[in-house]
């Protein structure tokens, strides 16, 4: 069970991104966190596995207080928390299989990881998971050869391979087209059922949240302003979450960062050429 109490985060800039947020998640619940851009959704997710350090409050996972762990203990705790990222966050130059197996890095020795010599069960599990997410036969492809939807499936497979107690997903669909977004959401909900673990998903599009989530949490200006079932999310509630902003999600997609264009300053042709040679096909498509 994930239990969050009075969680708060003030950034170095003085920005109060998260304020007194408390809620519990358990079972195989799919929880959608909605809210306008800048509401603190990413901060919330990242405070749970401490990619961002919270400044107040507690996060407990099955009784362990994550906020007070030492670095070493934190690494052990992170193994039990799967994370899916908005921009996939795959290591582009590694193969699909290496990206998936990297979910086991917390369990194998660095030396084995270095030689890519993972235990047989892990390899089997990786093959099975890739099959499950529909990527059978892509094991040896490099991550940058895949489409956006395929990459996000690899990202999900990597999280699943951790055999986590919970999966966190930070806007997993915001770089994808509507159809692929739906498929990815379906996959995440199915995983919650199959693995009987809760999944906490930040999401921009309210319709997607309604459709897939068992429970919806609304954030505004770092505060929790709504916590209920999709049915309870009526216009009044939406108004509270989005305030003056127009509810309805899809209109609000400009928050998605564009993929980085490859820098092409042509200052030193010969030097540039080495780098161009060394670099592979441009990422993103």
């Amino acid at each position, binding site marked *: 069970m994930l239990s969050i109490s009075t969680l708060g985060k003030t950034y170095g800039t003085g920005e109060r991104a998260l304020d007194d947020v408390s809620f519990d998640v358990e079972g195989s619940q799919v929880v959608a966190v909605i809210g306008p851009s800048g509401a603190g959704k990413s901060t919330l997710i990242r405070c749970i596995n401490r990619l961002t350090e919270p400044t107040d409050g507690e996060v407990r996972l099955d009784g362990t207080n994550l906020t007070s762990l030492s670095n070493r203990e934190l690494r052990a705790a992170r193994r039990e928390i799967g994370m899916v990222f908005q921009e996939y966050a795959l290591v582009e130059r590694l193969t699909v299989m290496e990206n998936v197996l990297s979910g086991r890095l917390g369990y194998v020795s660095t030396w084995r990881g270095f030689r890519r010599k993972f235990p047989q069960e892990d390899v089997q599990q*990786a093959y*099975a998971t890739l099959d499950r997410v529909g990527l059978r036969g892509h094991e040896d492809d490099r991550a940058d050869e895949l489409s956006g939807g395929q990459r996000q499936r690899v990202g999900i497979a990597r999280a*699943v391979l951790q055999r986590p107690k919970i999966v966190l997903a930070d806007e997993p669909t915001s770089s994808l087209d509507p159809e692929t977004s739906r498929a990815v959401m379906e996959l995440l909900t199915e995983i919650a059922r199959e693995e009987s673990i809760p999944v906490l998903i930040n999401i921009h599009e309210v319709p997607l949240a309604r459709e897939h989530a068992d429970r919806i949490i609304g954030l505004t200006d770092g505060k929790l302003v709504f916590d209920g079932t999709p049915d309870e999310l009526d216009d009044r509630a939406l108004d509270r979450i989005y305030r003056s902003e127009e509810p309805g999600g899809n209109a609000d997609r400009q928050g998605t960062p564009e993929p980085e264009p490859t820098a092409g300053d042509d200052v030193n042709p010969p030097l540039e050429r080495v780098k161009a040679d060394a670099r592979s096909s441009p990422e993103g498509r």
Partner: protein
Amino acid sequence: MTGTRPIDAYETEWRRPTVFASHRTKWIVYGLGIAFLAWNVWEARVSLERFVYGLGQGAVLLEGMVPPDFGVSVTANGIETERSFWRIYEGMVETLAMSIVATVAGVAISVPVAVMAAENLVPRPVYYVGRAIVSVTRAMHELIVGIVLVVGFGFGALAGVLALVFATPGFFAKLLAEDLEDIDPAQLDAVRSTGAGPLSVLVYGVLPQVLPRMIGLTIYRWDINLRASTILGIVGAGGIGATLNTAFNTYEYDYAMAILLAIIALVVLGEIISAYTRRRVQ
């Protein structure tokens, strides 16, 4: 998580694919590479004693180098300059002049070579000749050409300028040829369709497409020539390098340091001017 099949139906082994023909080839290549490196390190083994002695000499050298002696002193009567200051000044002027003349002459001979080395503009045999010129002029370092030419032309800037001119196609023609190969063929056809001869096609169809790039490359080449001009004097081919070499040979280390600083200043200045103008042009 289980896939569509029972877990034991899946493979238990996975090997990272390799760009080599096989994993065995990979290890052979790696092994050869490491053996080559190891042999080189072994071959170059250096006695510690000599190394330590050298460090001691380095300290002596450094002591002799600071403070640098530019041959300028400030006295009650104002600023006084010695002969050594003017030697630096003359060397720098000569260096600069060499770099400019060599760039103009070098670019002039490189343009036809670039056309010859552009696959889309000339017949095959000509192309091969063009590529050969590029490869040879690229492979020979300016200083090597310089030291040979000094014997033919005597000490002085002429040998240096010729060495730089010789080296220019290896850079300029190579890069320009790559641009020529990328030009838009539709514009060539447009000019050809007016019944223009090959030279007109070059002037009206090709030149406008690559002119900004040519100017940029010329400035860039000047920058490279300026650097090279500062050292050609070490083999007697003109410029400040001769003064530097003499200073080292006569143990005037403080003077050598002054020359070094002057060279660095000139090179950095050249780099700034080159970067700035190239940005403006392109």
